[in-house]
């Protein structure tokens, strides 16, 4: 049976070499190193998230926002330069930024222009050949208004789809064999082969993060095409961060 007097503290200091405060210091030091490494790793990890482009700063209430983006077969920058990706023009400096986090004001008309530089193919599900959720459920492709795109005849490079807002716009693809095909972004709409797609939609009144993605398997090289850029923020999927 146990007796409590057996549980007396016996510190064998002489065997350990370090005094108690010395040991405390060592433990705290090691602890600090571990915490530092963990925080450093976490910061480095989170820092791989793409930047946010704001269309709210400097935006006058009531006026429409003009959002200009491009879709490139290869983003050209960042850790995966060969991956297909969006680039968006900042309203402030007019520079192309490699990101899919776009901050938009609530309850505002957004006029979107997308320069589509990528090649295309048939849709996996022709349902996404319909234009929905935009003003008039239509979009323009190099000036021509359309509501449905037959992707078997007219290959689709990407779709701009915001599920929660019911928005879907197919973006027709270009031919890789034609002259001026953009091999690597950011591409130049002035000189390089592209389709210009425009459409407008209205942001909802409730703030929130509305994800957008693409419904064409454009993650080439990944099984069934939906890996890689399709599943990484900043490439083919992102958020419309609608804020008041």
């Amino acid at each position, binding site marked *: 049976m146990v007796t409590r007097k057996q549980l007396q503290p016996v510190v064998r200091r002489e065997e350990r070499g370090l005094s108690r405060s010395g040991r405390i210091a060592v433990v705290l030091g090691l602890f600090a190193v571990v915490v530092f490494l963990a925080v450093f790793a976490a910061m480095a990890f989170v820092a791989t998230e793409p930047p946010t482009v704001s269309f709210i700063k400097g935006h006058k209430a009531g006026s429409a926002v003009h959002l200009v983006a491009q879709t490139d077969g290869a983003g050209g920058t960042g850790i995966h330069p060969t991956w297909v990706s969006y680039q968006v023009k900042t309203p402030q400096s007019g520079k192309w930024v490699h990101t899919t986090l776009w901050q938009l004001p609530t309850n505002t008309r957004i006029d979107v222009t997308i320069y589509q530089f990528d090649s*295309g193919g048939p*849709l*996996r*599900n*022709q349902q996404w050949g319909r234009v929905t959720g935009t003003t008039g459920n239509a979009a323009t492709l190099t000036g021509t208004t359309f509501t449905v795109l037959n992707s078997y005849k007219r290959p689709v490079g990407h779709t701009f789809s915001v599920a929660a807002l019911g928005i879907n716009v197919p973006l027709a693809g270009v031919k890789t064999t034609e002259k001026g095909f953009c091999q690597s972004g950011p591409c130049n709409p002035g000189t390089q082969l592209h389709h210009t797609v425009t459409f407008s939609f209205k942001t909802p009144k409730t703030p929130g993060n509305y994800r957008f993605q693409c419904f064409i398997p454009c993650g*080439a090289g990944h099984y069934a095409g*939906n890996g890689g850029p*399709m599943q990484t923020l900043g490439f083919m999927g992102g958020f419309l961060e609608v804020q008041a």
Partner: protein
Amino acid sequence: MSEHAGTSGRPGAGASTSSVAAGTARPLQDIWRIVGIWVALSIVGDLVFWFVAGPHVPPGDMTSSASGAQFDFNVLFMVALPVILAVWTYMGYAVIMWRASRPGAPEPIGGPRARSNLKVQLWWIVVTTVVVLSMFVFGTVELIVPAGAGGAEGPNPIWTPASKNVLPIQVIAQQWQFTYRYPTFGGMETSTLIVPDNTTIAFHVTSLDVIHSFWAYQLGVKIDANPGIDDVGYTTTNQLGKFTVRCNELCGIWHGAMYDYGKVVSKAQFQKWGTSTARATAANTKYLPPFAWTYSPTANGATGVTAANTSGQAPFSKIQTYGATTKAKKVVKNVQTSTTTITTGST
């Protein structure tokens, strides 16, 4: 329980002989007390649960399978609660009455009688076996009688609804949205699920890429979407209302955002909605592949290699894989008995 504090232990009589004497005088006194507390707690707990919480247990009673799941859950809970309470009551009693720090706690008795008790062991095994087997019988009946209880029955369902008039709806899962095809409305495809009231529905769930799971929460339906597989499940609606559809199998980055909302509407409204939607989407429906139980999207070259399809193959395969012959007939029969005839999109 404090009134019992002194009775079983005989405070002051510390020697083991006195506790043996106490044990032989009323050997099962503690057990009867525990049983008494347990029975009281169980009856109260079960009654409170059944009448207060029971009717509100998810997923509600919008469909036959939802109310079936609710009923099953409640029945299982009625059994489970006494089981939990039995162990907790016993442990609680033990912790209070048989703790070493209780004044006058008797010395425990070791030896063969404390090491095993054949009668107790046998009864324990018999009772747990009976409980478990009756749970199994109950679960099996509740699975087979309501035609699979809203769960996935695979491509060859063996428990099918008695109704002759089953509405087939195809659920196509892809990364990261569900779309729904209505063979009864010319094979049109929509992004929202609208179903009629008082109708038995056969959900044919398939996937175009990875494994998803179609979970129509309030409908009490959960069916995995496997690529190349036509996974069938049945339910019968019996209430109007809205419901949520969520993807229930991790399918990649947007899994958490793969949800939409559907509606149960009256039959007349459903007919009206279907006809008008079919008209509105006709421009696109004609480009859709012919209605099939499964689609092989990679057959059209859309494998991610972004090149035009030069294979000469049809954009989508028409194959009806995995035991489709039997079912194709069945659905044709269903379609004939339902309100609108099937017309596949033509290209």
